[in-house]
């Protein structure tokens, strides 16, 4: 039950883009086409889940025992950068087709604040899912990270669909490009606000 709550809350109620404002730059940047949007979502999903597990373990077994938690920011960003690079190298060797599909999106993910955001959130913030407020265990953290990245994918793909339609419409000149995109996201966020009663 608690796991179900984590998943629903991470995908719909606290959607990472529409409620938490993380990962907006790539969200606006690559949502022009449905195909690139799904490629990016896949890459983000992969990296967020992996990065959260790795940073969680590093925090628990390295930073906390040695009293180095003030180094969290530096350590995490380095781990994420190294991880993205490793994933890229491994993927190129092991599964060239997936590597091709993810293409340029992988290196871009290092600067996606959603990755660092989720990693920091998981180790510092106390969550209440049905029970009392507590820091997440590794299992919960992994599920939370995966569900959050699914939420990212959902928002991204929905928005790409809207944007493909927008491109065919006559938009007033000053609204063209980003302004109309932002206003559409706003309306989408308004719709997602409707989920807030669920959890």
């Amino acid at each position, binding site marked *: 039950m608690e796991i179900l709550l984590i998943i629903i809350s991470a995908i719909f109620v606290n959607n990472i883009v529409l409620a938490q*404002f993380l990962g907006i730059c790539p969200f606006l940047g690559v949502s022009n086409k449905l195909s690139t949007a799904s490629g990016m979502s896949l890459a983000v999903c992969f990296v967020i889940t992996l990065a959260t597990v790795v940073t969680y373990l590093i925090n628990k077994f390295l930073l906390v025992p040695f009293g180095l938690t003030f180094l969290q920011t530096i350590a995490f960003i380095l781990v994420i950068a190294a991880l993205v690079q490793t994933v890229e190298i491994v993927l190129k060797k092991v599964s060239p087709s997936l590597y091709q599909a993810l293409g340029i999106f992988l290196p871009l993910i290092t600067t996606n604040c959603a990755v660092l955001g989720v990693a920091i959130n998981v180790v510092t913030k106390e969550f209440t899912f049905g029970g009392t407020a507590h820091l997440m265990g590794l299992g919960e953290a992994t599920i939370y990270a995966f569900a959050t990245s699914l939420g990212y994918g959902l928002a991204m793909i929905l928005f790409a669909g809207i944007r493909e339609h927008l491109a065919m419409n006559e938009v007033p000149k000053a609204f063209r490009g980003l302004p109309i995109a*932002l206003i559409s996201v*706003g309306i989408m966020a308004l719709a*997602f606000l409707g989920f807030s009663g669920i959890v």
Partner: protein
Amino acid sequence: MSKFSLITKGLLKENPTFVLVLGMCPTLATTTSAMNGLEMGLATMFVLILSNIVISLIAPVVPDKVHIPVYIVVIATFVTVLQLLMQAFTPAVYKTLGLFIPLIVVNCIILGRAEAFANKNGVWDSALDGIGIGIGFTLSLTVIGIVREILGSGAIFGWKFITGDGMLAFVMAPGAFIVLGYLMVLFNKIAKK
């Protein structure tokens, strides 16, 4: 480029929010009120100026292949300094801005300025560039914050001029996107004529 225009370009011509469209996450997330926007802007400016200075100094000796990781470490160091300073002196502000203070590391404005300006210019110019872009960012965030605070809670800088509630949606997530969208339209109309 004259020293003065280094500072003023961040306001209109290279405004980080409305023209370059960088650093959108803190722009949207922390502008629930004018004060929050202002504080976030100042925090980012602090890191931007210091990282610009250091990067302009070390750029000539950093090998080209590893320059991005090196810059990120420099930026992350200053972010950590800022985190510790804020925890010590302004714990309340640190708590409101929350996650978005450590996330200054991945704010594209800072790495963007390092790449586009600080690594090919002198220390003095880079510091001025940091100040200029920082002021532009702070002003943009404050303006968005003011609009959202007026609409969302009927107040300016915490001074309430209506009784009762405002339109709550503007303090919440959807309002951020919509206000930024319309402000961008306004900016396009005024600045790009």
